[in-house]
């Protein structure tokens, strides 16, 4: 499998990519249609508003409760998993995680890996890492397989190939697999099924993500519809699960509301086709299942987000994708525009902790702050509030100690002085009056350019008379009475 071209290298910066995406009518249409339908599906999945709100509140409390005892839970999880025969590994960085995964594969002399859908493995760019070491790592989720075949990255966390339509997939299968062209989705899926079935059978190692890790029982829970997750975690002799450290919940029963929130928010399904609870490798008397199961727990910036009580809420995320489905910005520019693993609202609040805010300085402002993301989030992450916080972090003095990694990237001395001046003007009445007098009289001298504002708007020109003037004159004429 050839190397993926990191999307970030195609066009630099969010702004450039956004402009490009906005001119692509096909792309805009694909997203518009898909997001409209996902929004309807979610709405239909929660017909009772009281139940929905109660469940969201519970989801929030369960996740926040789990985070409030996270280190203990991780230790409990490790202990239980170990008792069950699962090997637990810890990684602070994606490099460490990749090394661990590679080490496990090498110990088995493995050369072929099949991968179920896993956003953490995207964070790790695991496919590229393994490919460079001669190991083929094949995506087995249909959507992921399609984007991998086209050397792309996923554009949505639940529907990785949502930016493509059937015609585009047909062409891709024709070009890359030599299959006859067809726009029949069923036939396209059957091509994927045939191609991947052989891979499931031959793979030495299966990799998966984890939706919830249950400390009480030492269980990894995965939701999926296709069966590729079950194949990847069951058919090969080794299963490696990779997950962020925030995915642990205390008790088995906690997954009841969380799975319900996840599947209904993501695709509007009451439940996914498969909910897979894995609690250990094959036992001596069993006839199938992997001989080895490993769990890699990854930090990659999560402890940084955790350190800040407000930003910690980011770690509540159960990766349902609802925030992007409802985001007016995401719908128009698509997932690739963000240039990062996690697009849309969740990406904007989580990427700064992974990559650093200076890598994505435009992200916090690529939002209308309409609040839709926060309103739909099943675990009630106050995304708009966190975006505002990141906007503040963005303009903090970089000389000062930073609370969010890479803060201060948008700090501008000029802007700082302008605001100081503005403050002075507005807190000294005499100064304010003389400024107003001058601004109205010399209005012709107002600057014609005002930064990005005048890219799409005409420049503001002060009125001939200020409102104060007009009001005073009016009151004079009416003997001090408002008419």
């Amino acid at each position, binding site marked *: 499998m050839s190397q993926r071209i990191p999307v970030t290298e195609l066009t630099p910066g969010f702004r450039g990519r956004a402009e490009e995406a906005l001119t692509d009518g096909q792309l805009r249409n694909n997203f518009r249609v898909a997001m409209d339908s996902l929004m309807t599906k979610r709405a239909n999945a929660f017909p009772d508003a009281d139940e929905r709100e109660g469940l969201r509140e*519970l989801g929030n409390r369960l996740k926040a*409760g789990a985070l409030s005892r*996270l*280190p203990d839970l991780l230790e409990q999880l490790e202990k239980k998993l170990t008792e069950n025969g699962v090997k637990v590994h810890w990684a602070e960085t994606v490099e460490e995680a990749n090394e661990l995964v590679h080490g496990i594969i090498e110990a088995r002399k493995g050369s072929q890996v099949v991968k179920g859908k896993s956003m953490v493995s995207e964070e790790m760019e695991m496919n590229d890492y393994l490919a460079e070491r001669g190991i083929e790592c094949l995506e087995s989720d249909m959507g992921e397989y399609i984007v991998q075949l086209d050397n792309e990255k996923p554009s949505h966390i639940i529907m990785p190939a949502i930016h493509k339509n059937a015609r585009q997939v047909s062409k891709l299968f024709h070009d890359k697999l030599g299959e006859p062209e067809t726009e029949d989705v069923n036939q396209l899926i059957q091509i994927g*099924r045939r191609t991947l079935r052989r891979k499931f059978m031959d793979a030495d190692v299966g990799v998966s993500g984890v939706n919830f890790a249950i400390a009480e029982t030492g269980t990894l829970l995965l939701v999926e519809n296709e*069966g590729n997750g*079950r194949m990847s975690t069951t058919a090969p002799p080794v299963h490696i699960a990779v997950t962020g450290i925030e995915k642990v919940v*205390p008790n088995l029963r*906690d997954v009841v509301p969380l799975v319900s929130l996840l599947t209904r928010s993501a695709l509007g399904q009451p439940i996914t086709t498969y909910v897979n609870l894995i609690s250990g490798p094959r036992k001596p008397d069993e006839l199938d299942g992997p001989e080895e199961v490993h769990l890699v727990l990854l930090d990659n910036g999560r402890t940084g987000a955790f350190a800040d009580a407000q930003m910690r809420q980011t770690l509540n995320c159960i990766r349902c994708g609802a925030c992007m489905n409802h985001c007016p910005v995401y719908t128009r520019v698509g997932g690739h525009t963000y240039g990062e693993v996690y697009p849309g609202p969740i990406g904007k609040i989580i990427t700064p902790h992974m990559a650093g805010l200076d890598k994505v300085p435009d992200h916090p402002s690529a939002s209308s702050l309409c609040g839709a993301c926060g309103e739909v989030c099943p675990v009630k992450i106050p995304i708009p509030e966190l975006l505002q916080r990141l906007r503040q972090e963005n303009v903090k003095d970089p000389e000062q100690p930073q609370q969010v990694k890479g803060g201060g990237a948008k700090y501008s001395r000029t802007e700082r002085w302008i605001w100081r001046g503005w403050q002075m003007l507005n807190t000294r009445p005499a100064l304010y009056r003389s400024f107003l007098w001058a601004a109205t009289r010399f209005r012709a001298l107002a600057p014609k350019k005002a930064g990005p504002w005048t890219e799409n708007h005409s420049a503001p020109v002060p009125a001939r008379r200020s409102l104060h003037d007009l009001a005073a004159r009016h009151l004079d004429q009416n003997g001090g009475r408002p008419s």
Partner: protein
Amino acid sequence: MTARANILGKLRSSLVGTTPRPDEFDEALVTAPWRYAPEDRIARLRSLMEAVHTEVHQCGSDNWPELVAELLNKRNLTNLLCAPSIEHGRALQAYFEATEQTIELLAYDQPVEAWKEELFWNVDASLTGTLGGIAATGTVVLWPDRHEPRLMSLVPPVHIALLKASEIHDNLYDMMVSQDWAAGLPTNVLLVSGPSKTADIEQVLAYGAHGPRELIVLVLEDL
């Protein structure tokens, strides 16, 4: 310092001076909206499962093998993977022998490595029992073991699941609590709610992505 110590250390230092939040689980929220009269459970499970292309049949506890033969014959399938060493497998075998069915019964009686190729390419259908069902979501619960290993319900293109009506629970919470799952889970438990599917291309739903194309649930009316 190891990665483990670093991660746990950072998390602990961020929590200094805080107390863990109390357990705020709300049982009523995950059970009350999902209660059904016993006579409605089958109907609820059935309508949800059928909505996602599952074929559901209700039959007696003794005449189901006949139905299995009929379903396989209708599809021109030539073999069926089952577990002749356990009760329902024995019943099926007895029926097939007595009626001289031409469908070959296969047993999963050796480690998968010994017959992976055959399992992946030459098995038409499989039949397994279930631990029960869930009315709220239209789900059957599989609890694989030595007799009915994990791949049995996944690899063959048609999967037939036997579900006793008396074992249909209202919701997942009730089921896991009444059966005390937390006390000891097997290596793998599966909640299955339909045949394998995907909507990854243009959100058009297509069945038979990687797992079974068809799921057939036989509800044995043992009430």
